[in-house]
């Protein structure tokens, strides 16, 4: 059997086994081993196939087709059943339309279509496999430690850990299939499985809120799935092909652009772009590892992955313009929105949507430089975001809150945990770290392709990004000196995956010239004929010097500190400090507690009107864009 097939099937089998094992201890061991194997397997697959790449077709195609068909029917029946039970009729309708449509297509037209390569493994797939395999397995590893404490802190929820871990692995399996498949029908199937898995994970706690949010996620993603299905059928009937690699080499005429537009809509729903973003914000009711998985390694990355694949058909075509506009509006609006949030998970969710918006913008701009930026953004975002989610999850266990305002004591509770979180935040926006390098190239790419509007939006969005991350970082280092000591226990099974990801965040920044040279440039050369790294070597050197400085400087200051003992005085509070830096003498001789709060500017950025109108604008862009595309195509 082929290694690639093992990589796809192993998590699936692991998922089944984990679901059946009910003993806590045994299951934890199995989860840990399976996570390690998944991670190692993805490394091996990439190592073996990286140079040559790989293209294969399924041997027993008919059998696999029928298996997939049976599985789709099962999924559809399950969705329709639970949808009817919970009175969520939109999801029912979507499932009831697309599955019969696909089955009708499989049984009639598909027989005449020959698929040469079901699976294609190129440099981009290699990057995706590493993201899914490594980050995904680290998150599973973390989940073992996390879920133990989750159920101690939340004894109101029914424990369904077997189910939870099983779905995590199912998710990884589907995602691996998705990034490897070249056949659109197989990709569509994996696409639907990821929608289902996210539905199952979000609804884990079975509370009313969780149920509603899970159904919202399912409905929106099934809507996207419907668009995907229609696109597949259109391509199949019109062009007698079902291969992604053939599709992207076609001429951008109307009959091609309509299915591409539908595929892009599917990608936008999955990547939670405006106007489809509400499901990702609702997804945070689930336990943190599942949020981490949704936000970093799987799910939302599927959408941008598809857009990156479709990039040759986007660019200056009408579809490309629409998607660029949607992405940049999303980036700006959600960056501004993140300023008004104090719940750490909400900030992370908005920042995910914003960054995906940026990736969508870059990918749909479709030039060589912008694709370079898009892929690099995707890599760095995955690493930093999952690090941040995992550290927020552990913080919640340590200080009992995930509000950023309460994190000023984190330094006293666990110095290491706050350091990991600072690394994660720095990775998201600070100068020598990865996200910024990509933003830099994105800016260059937009101006090179005369996208003035996008450049302006990027400038404003970056300013907003800087605001909300810095104030969070400020809280972490503010070193509030509370007298009461909080008992903490940052366990090794939580810390180990976090540590690895913090290390990955830093290492990936040092390694980006290598990633660029060995993966991005060859991939882009394949797409565009030729490609170069868009940053000059002298600049790369300066960046690396800066990064080293950031690591060395804090250490080099410690000898000065040892020698230089200074007088420590109370904080200045206009002479009214009660002496302990925690209280001050207020009016009428009352002693009051000092409370320091960040700015949220929520009467500007936090109100619902702002969000409502941004969604209206996004819908308008899509509708007007679609109308213009069809009109332009007919003329």
């Amino acid at each position, binding site marked *: 059997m082929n290694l690639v097939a093992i990589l796809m099937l192993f998590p699936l089998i692991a998922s089944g086994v984990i679901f059946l094992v009910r003993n806590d201890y045994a299951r934890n061991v199995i989860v840990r081993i399976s996570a390690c194997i998944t991670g190692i397997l993805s490394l091996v697959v990439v190592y073996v196939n990286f140079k040559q790449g790989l293209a294969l077709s399924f041997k027993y195609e008919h059998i696999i087709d029928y298996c997939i068909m049976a599985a789709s029917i099962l999924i559809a029946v399950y969705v329709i059943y639970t949808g009817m039970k919970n009175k969520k009729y939109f999801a029912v309708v979507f499932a009831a339309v697309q599955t019969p449509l696909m089955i009708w297509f499989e049984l009639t037209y598909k027989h005449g279509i020959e698929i040469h390569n079901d699976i294609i493994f190129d440099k981009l797939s290699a990057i995706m496999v590493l993201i899914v395999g490594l980050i995904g397995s680290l998150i599973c590893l973390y989940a073992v430690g996390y879920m133990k404490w989750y159920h101690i802190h939340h004894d109101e929820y029914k424990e369904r850990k077997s189910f939870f871990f099983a779905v995590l692995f199912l998710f990884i399996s589907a995602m691996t299939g998705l990034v490897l498949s070249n056949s659109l029908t197989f990709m569509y199937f994996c696409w639907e499985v990821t929608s289902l898995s996210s539905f199952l994970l979000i609804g884990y706690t079975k509370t009313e809120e969780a149920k509603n949010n899970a159904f919202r996620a399912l409905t929106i993603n099934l809507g996207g799935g419907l668009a995907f299905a229609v696109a597949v059928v259109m391509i199949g009937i019109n062009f007698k092909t079902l291969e992604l690699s053939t599709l992207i080499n076609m001429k951008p005429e109307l009959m091609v652009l309509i299915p591409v537009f539908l595929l892009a809509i599917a990608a936008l729903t999955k990547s939670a772009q405006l106007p489809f973003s509400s499901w990702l914000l609702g997804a945070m009711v689930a336990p943190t590892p599942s949020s981490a998985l949704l936000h970093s390694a799987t799910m939302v990355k599927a959408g941008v992955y598809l857009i990156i694949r479709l990039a040759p058909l986007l660019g200056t075509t009408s579809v490309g313009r629409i998607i660029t506009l949607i992405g940049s509006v999303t980036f700006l609006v959600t960056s501004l929105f993140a300023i008004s949030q104090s719940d750490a998970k909400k900030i992370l969710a908005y920042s995910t949507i914003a960054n995906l918006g940026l990736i969508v913008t870059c990918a749909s701009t479709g030039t060589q430089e912008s694709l370079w930026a898009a892929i690099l953004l995707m890599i760095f975002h995955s690493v930093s975001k999952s690090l941040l989610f995992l550290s927020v999850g552990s913080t919640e266990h340590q200080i009992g809150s995930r509000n950023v305002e309460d994190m000023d004591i984190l330094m006293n509770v666990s110095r290491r945990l706050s350091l990991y979180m600072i690394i994660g935040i720095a990775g998201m926006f*600070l100068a020598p770290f990865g996200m910024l390098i990509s933003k*830099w190239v994105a800016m260059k790419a937009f101006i090179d392709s005369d996208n*003035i509007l996008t450049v302006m939006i990027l*400038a404003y969005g970056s*300013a907003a990004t800087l605001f909300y991350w810095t104030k969070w970082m*400020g809280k972490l280092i503010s070193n*509030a000196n509370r007298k009461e000591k909080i008992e903490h226990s940052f366990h090794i099974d939580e810390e180990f995956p976090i540590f690895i990801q913090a290390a990955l965040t830093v290492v990936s920044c040092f390694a980006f010239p290598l990633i660029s040279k060995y993966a991005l440039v060859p991939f882009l050369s394949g797409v565009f004929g030729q490609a170069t790294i868009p940053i000059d070597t002298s600049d790369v050197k300066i960046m690396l010097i800066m990064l080293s400085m950031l690591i060395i*400087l804090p250490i080099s200051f410690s000898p000065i500190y040892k020698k230089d003992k200074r007088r420590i*005085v109370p*904080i200045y509070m206009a002479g009214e400090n009660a002496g302990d830096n925690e209280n001050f003498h207020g009016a009428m001789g009352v002693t009051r507690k000092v409370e320091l709060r960040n700015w949220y500017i929520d009467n500007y950025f936090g109100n619902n009107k702002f969000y409502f109108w941004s969604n209206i604008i996004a819908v308008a862009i899509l509708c007007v864009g679609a109308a213009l595309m069809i009109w332009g195509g007919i003329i």
Partner: protein
Amino acid sequence: MIILKIIAIIILAPVIGGLLTGMDRVISARMQGRFGPPLLQPFYDVFKLLQKESIEVNMMHRFYVYISLIFVIFTTVIMLLGGDILLAIFVLTLGSIFFVLGGYASNSPYSLVGSERELLQMMAYEPMVLLVSVGLYYVDKSFYITQIISSKMPAIIYLPGVFAGLLFILTFKLRKSPFDLSMSHHGHQEIVKGITTEYSGKDLAVIEITHWYETVIAFVLVYIFFATASNFSHFIAIGVCGVVYLLEIIIDNAFARVKWQMALKSAWIVTGILAAVNLIVLSFIK
């Protein structure tokens, strides 16, 4: 050779920055009908600060201003060696962020308010600073300052709007009224001395020196718009820098400090209009 150059930049830039600050104080005094301090007063101040006892509120907060200084020096060196302007701006932002974090680290009410305001100011001026470098790149197809200042035509001809926008946000960068919300040069502000409230002695001297470097950086940005391949243009560029500085001093003395809402809105609207119109026009005529 390059090492000598770097050393010269590191030593000379603060001297120039300090002299500029001294001139500012003399001119301001004359505008207000005072005689004012001697030209070298900023240097006397800093030397005195260095001799004073440095007291602190916790072990950590001075660390951030040192790092801030190092990255601001780094920016100055990149810019004066003719390096990548966008990279220089990113490094400068990093330096500014460390300064803000210094305010957070002291965990003092006045410092925190100062930090929040400083952060807001950064959010207000950052789009324009980025668009300045984008505009220059759009004109000369290079981010390198050496190449930008060796073109035939000065950038100002293509980018009058962007330059006007830069002048607007320069008031933030130079910490001048009406946009000196976070840390005024004058101690009678409602938030005492903002971020610097808890710093004293050597640390305060470091902050002052950082500001000198930042002043030089601000004028390098102005300078780039006027310098070309011809030698004469460099004199013009220096002259313009002088005029701009005088203008900023007049604005400083003529306007009262605004509220943060006004600072943010005005900077974003001015940026949006001037930079957008300029860049769009440019995209048509190029």
